[in-house]
């Protein structure tokens, strides 16, 4: 029996739950404790666990570094984009109520998009940082 078999099985078992929990935190963030930042951290925790269990090469085959870079930028773009969209719709920066015809619906949409942006950025950036350090330690 390979010594890390237990670890791998456990990781395979845990990662989906971690991700589901992350999405829960993400999408309930506007009503209950939680939000994009926390969700992003949890997602990246899943990524870290995966790397620990299955190794960097395998992980990078699934999520290449380049993709992480793109994702981290996209998240910020989403955030800023929503803000600018509010501007274009005639409100102040980040004034979501103007996004849709209905104020409340607009607020909902706005906050969900914003939190999504934060989540994507945090998740990808933290993963990116971990990957980069992992590369370093291998070189030295």
């Amino acid at each position, binding site marked *: 029996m390979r010594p890390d078999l237990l670890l791998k099985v456990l990781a395979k078992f845990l990662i989906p739950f971690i991700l589901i929990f992350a999405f829960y935190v993400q999408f309930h963030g506007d009503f209950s404790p939680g939000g994009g930042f926390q969700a992003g951290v949890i997602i990246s925790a899943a990524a870290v666990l995966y790397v620990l269990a299955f190794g960097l090469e395998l992980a990078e085959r699934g999520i290449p570094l380049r993709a992480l870079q793109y994702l981290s*930028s996209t998240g910020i773009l989403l955030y*800023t*984009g929503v803000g*600018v969209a509010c501007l274009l719709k005639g409100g102040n*920066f*980040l*004034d*979501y*109520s103007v996004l849709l015809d209905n104020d409340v619906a607009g607020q909902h949409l706005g906050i969900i998009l914003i939190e999504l942006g934060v989540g994507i950025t945090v998740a990808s950036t933290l993963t990116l940082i971990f990957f980069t350090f992992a590369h370093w330690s291998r070189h030295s």
Partner: protein
Amino acid sequence: MIENHMTIMLVVLPMLAAPLIALLPSKNLSWGLAILTATLQLYLAVNVLLDVQGGTAIHYELGGWAPPWGISYRLDSLNGLMALLVCLINFVCLLYAKASIEAEIPGRKLGLFYATWQLVVTGLLGIVLTGDIFNLFVFLEISSLSTYALIGMGRQRQALMAAFQYLLSGTLGASFFLIGVGLCYAATGTLNMQDLASQIGQSDQPMTLYSGFAFLFTGLLLKAAIYPLHAWLPNVYQFSPQAVSALLSATSTKVALYVVVRCLLDVFGVEFSLSRLFADLLLLAGSLAILFGSLRAIQQTDLKRLLAYSSIAQLGYSVVGLGLLTVTGLSGALVHLFNHGITKAALFMGAGMLALGPGTTLLTRLAGGTHRPWLLLLFLTGGLSLIGFPGTVGFISKWMLALAAIEQGHWWLLVVILLGSLLAILYVWKFIETLYFVPQNPPETSTGPVPGRGMWLACGLLCLAIVYFGLDTRFTLGVAMDAARQLLGVHP
């Protein structure tokens, strides 16, 4: 429509540009977008400053939430001037950075470099424009964190260590600031600057407030590299990439000092924060900074390190002006922030151009620069401005400060100011002499990269600005006087 949003656009534009730049595939496109953003920002900055001239202020509520609950941005002459400084320097440094950075940083990192640069600018402008003290802290961290990354990209090995040092000290300063903000929040229950200002007098916990003030203030002084909290600065300026040194020297400490001014005079108010003891403390710290910085600058053997110590000295002038607490002194201090900003940026750019070939700024390695006579003009203009020579911007600020010192009857301060100028001659002379009058041994043979057109253009622009604003002070000094009157509550 855009007129109403010009204030926020100043911050949003670089924030939007940063991820886009990181996504763009080619370094030329990245730079193009960066310079485009910078141009737009410069245009906006000039416009908003024109709008607030004469003492009006622009308010902007983020997300439509009214203060004190929401975050609001407030723009008056004081931060209008600072915003202009940041935008101007950002624009010029980007012009310069193209050729300069490509010689220092591998091509694949350039996109990230410009993206990080945009984040620095976002942070700086955010600090300058926000009217919310916690929001200010967030922007402080944004600019600081991205600055650490920029510094770490320096060409020399020590750059990483310098970045690490700056990270440690910057965090120290930011933590103190945050503790201060927390204590103030505990005492007043608000984070909005104007609201805070109105509650200072009525707080039932003066001791908490006072401790908060002390922490906040000390943290800011560290960020602004005010003597005796200056020790982190020389390494940072010395080992950063050339364009980054220019950007930081002209903006980051200035912006931190702006926050000091804003907190001291606007938020806490003159009576609260500047009991005589405190004002005298500022005068003392400023004077020591002038003397210490100048003396240390004379000792340096590295051009950029010399300039860094000179920055410490020059910041001292602004602190002295602040401590005098008069309209003349304060406007001198503010206009000196602007004036010294453009001067030092020009000088760091000159240093960067010399270092392009040899890759170092050790004075002995740069000797014999006679093959670049035009740079002499740059160094002379900048140097004379550091000394405070009439016809350059440096004179204007020192004249105001000297006048303010006499107004108050602080003769010893006048002596310090003038002595600082004399010492400045020594260090300015030191680098001009080594660069242009000491023959190089062996003579320059290496044909390293040649300064690009953008670099020349940037230097030329700043030199012109140094002379122009030295001769025509209506704009800069006018805005600074407006701001000083507002801050001190004096009506013309």
